[in-house]
């Protein structure tokens, strides 16, 4: 965004332009980047507010859904059916994802809980038993897909250094953009979250390495309106390094059935 245009609208332009006219080109070159940086340097609380409650599955207080996952591999494809249970109360978030099909994977479950203070605890159940994931396990692939454990968790200031970047568009959708840099070393250097300006839905994520190369890319390809809320209908995560992709198709969204506490208890994994 051109900072001069921003300051020229609804503001008295005279002082800014007068300053720039008199300071000459060198100073203009110095001031313009500073003005651009200041428009992006919103306090961390601003970025944190934008990502509060943001998840791949919408921002309902309690929702369960059936997700069909298609793994597009180099040498074929695989299908998985998942049951997703999401509960968000105040600042506390609980997510349970379990494989519904194929049958030989139905013991696999993913449980994550975030408390009011932002502390997240995640367990993964596989055929080898229940394992608590460490911070560095966030890059672990979930159910052999291109999604990692971290992708199913909310973004918090505790785990990421957040900053708001200039607005952008994704397709034809106007989006706010938040940059999240992991506080611990991982498989990527930073990710850009594209949040729909109109409905605050997570429209896309770009995962970039240190050199700025795009490693993975998530895009919400279709949405559905249920009870006045916007929920994902289809999405895709592409792994640009490996040349694979995982497509999600969400069906059977249930906002009415209460989710029992036992679903989100590690003892019941």
């Amino acid at each position: 965004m051109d900072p001069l245009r921003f300051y020229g609208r609804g503001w008295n332009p005279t002082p800014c332009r007068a300053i720039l006219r008199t300071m000459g080109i060198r100073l203009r070159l110095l001031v313009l980047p500073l003005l651009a940086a200041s428009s992006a340097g919103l306090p961390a609380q601003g970025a944190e507010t934008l990502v509060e409650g943001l998840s791949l599955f919408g921002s309902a207080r309690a929702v369960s859904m059936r997700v069909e996952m298609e793994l597009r591999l180099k040498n074929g494809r695989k299908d998985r059916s998942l049951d997703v249970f999401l509960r968000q109360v105040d600042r506390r978030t609980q997510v349970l994802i379990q494989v519904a099909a194929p049958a030989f994977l139905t013991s696999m479950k993913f449980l994550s809980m975030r408390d009011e203070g932002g502390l997240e605890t995640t367990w993964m159940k596989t055929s080898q038993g229940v394992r608590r994931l460490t911070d560095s396990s966030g890059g672990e692939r979930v159910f052999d897909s291109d999604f990692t454990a971290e992708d199913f968790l909310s973004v918090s200031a505790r785990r990421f250094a957040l900053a708001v970047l200039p607005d952008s568009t994704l397709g034809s959708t106007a989006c706010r953009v938040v940059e999240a840099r992991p506080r611990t070393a991982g498989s990527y250097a930073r990710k850009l979250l594209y949040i729909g300006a109109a409905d605050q839905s997570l429209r896309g994520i770009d995962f970039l390495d240190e050199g700025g190369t795009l490693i993975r890319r998530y895009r919400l390809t279709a949405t559905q309106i249920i009870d006045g809320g916007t929920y994902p209908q289809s999405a895709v995560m592409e792994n640009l390094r490996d040349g694979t992709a995982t497509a999600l198709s969400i069906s059977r969204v249930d906002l009415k059935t209460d989710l029992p506490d036992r679903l989100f208890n590690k003892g019941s994994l």
Partner: protein
Amino acid sequence: MSRGSLPRRIAALSGFLLAVTAAGTLSADAVFGGRAGFTLGCLIDPAAPLSSTLDGALGFAPVLRVEDPLWGLEAGAAFAWKSGSAEAVPDLSRLFLSFAPADFLTARIGRFAYLPGAGGIASCTDWFAAFDLASLLAGGAAEPYRPGDMVQLGFSLGDLSLILTAMPFAPSWSLPDPDSPWFPDRDIPRSIHWTLFTEFDTYLTGITVKEGAAKDIMIGDVSVGVELSASLPYLDVSLLAYHGWDNTVLYRPSFSFPGGLTSDYGVELTPVARKIDAVGLDASFAWSSLSAWADASYTFSKTFLSDRLSVKDLAPFLVTAPLLEYAAGVGWQPEELPLILQAGYRGCLAFGAAEGTVLPYLAFHADAAAVLRLWEDRITAAVQAICSTSDWSGVAFGSLSFAPSSEFQANLSFPFFFGAADTELGQFTGNFHVSIGATAWF
């Protein structure tokens, strides 16, 4: 309540579960799948390779997931065979029904493995699963912990959970096989050197095993356990208590001298099933790329063998003492490397134990494992080592698996034993047991 044989119990349990499944399938999402595989093992005799013995197992573990809001059913079975035997021994490894009669309650009934310990073979609190040392040493597909027939209730309350478990039958202990290459020979003297008016030796003529352990249900012999778990920041903690059968059987050797005290002798092993009362503590911790776990259990009165012989029945005395067992381990899984490293240690302290008390195998041991994943996790190379710190003998298991897809895996495993011939694990130095296998999931 009448005693029931194993086949009758399985038939009754299976009939009940299948009837429930049929009713549940009518109104539920039913997903069928599972895995099938085989394992072929060869115990190579370096002195006579052509005389090596084969053993194997064919496994079939169907999974029928009836995911009505209330019901769930799983099943698994395997058939094991040995070379020279025309018999295939069936082994029902898993058959259980789970259901949720209330929001805070889940129930499970049937045969399954309940292993609350966090440290694998080193854990001290896996009381409900019979431990088979021979399966551990042989490697391959056989699991050292055998499942039990149980009823389990789980109560959830926020970050707390309470699990109540009852096992009406005795654990599926494995009887020792004196002809097995995994029989602990060092525990049985092959000869006795006599010094009377002259010196001479007498020799072992044979070993027999007496079936004496309780195997069927008896009133009042139900094993029960309770586990209270809490999920804290960075830490999962469980407090446990148990009353029931020990998950291992003590084998008491008694000597017989048919031709008189100075004649050749035989040994009869009498299994001694032990009832115990124990409390335990499990904890696991995760931070950054590190994980750690710790188990401890205190058995109020445990029975051991003594190295002193009773003149009356020519068998070792049995002694009892309280026993504290403890174990801990760490793991490191860096995100930037396809590597997992783990190490652990287990020890024990028998309070007030008389001199000559014989502690069980691997009472003091360290274990370590390294797992390397290559080629996008298609190849997994692993080494796991167990070292008895009481006599510095040990075993290292090497394994290599190839999984070109998530539906198929082939694997090769082989152990190396080291140590002196009279040590816990060194006595198996001559056993080179190579296993190959393949598993397909459908």
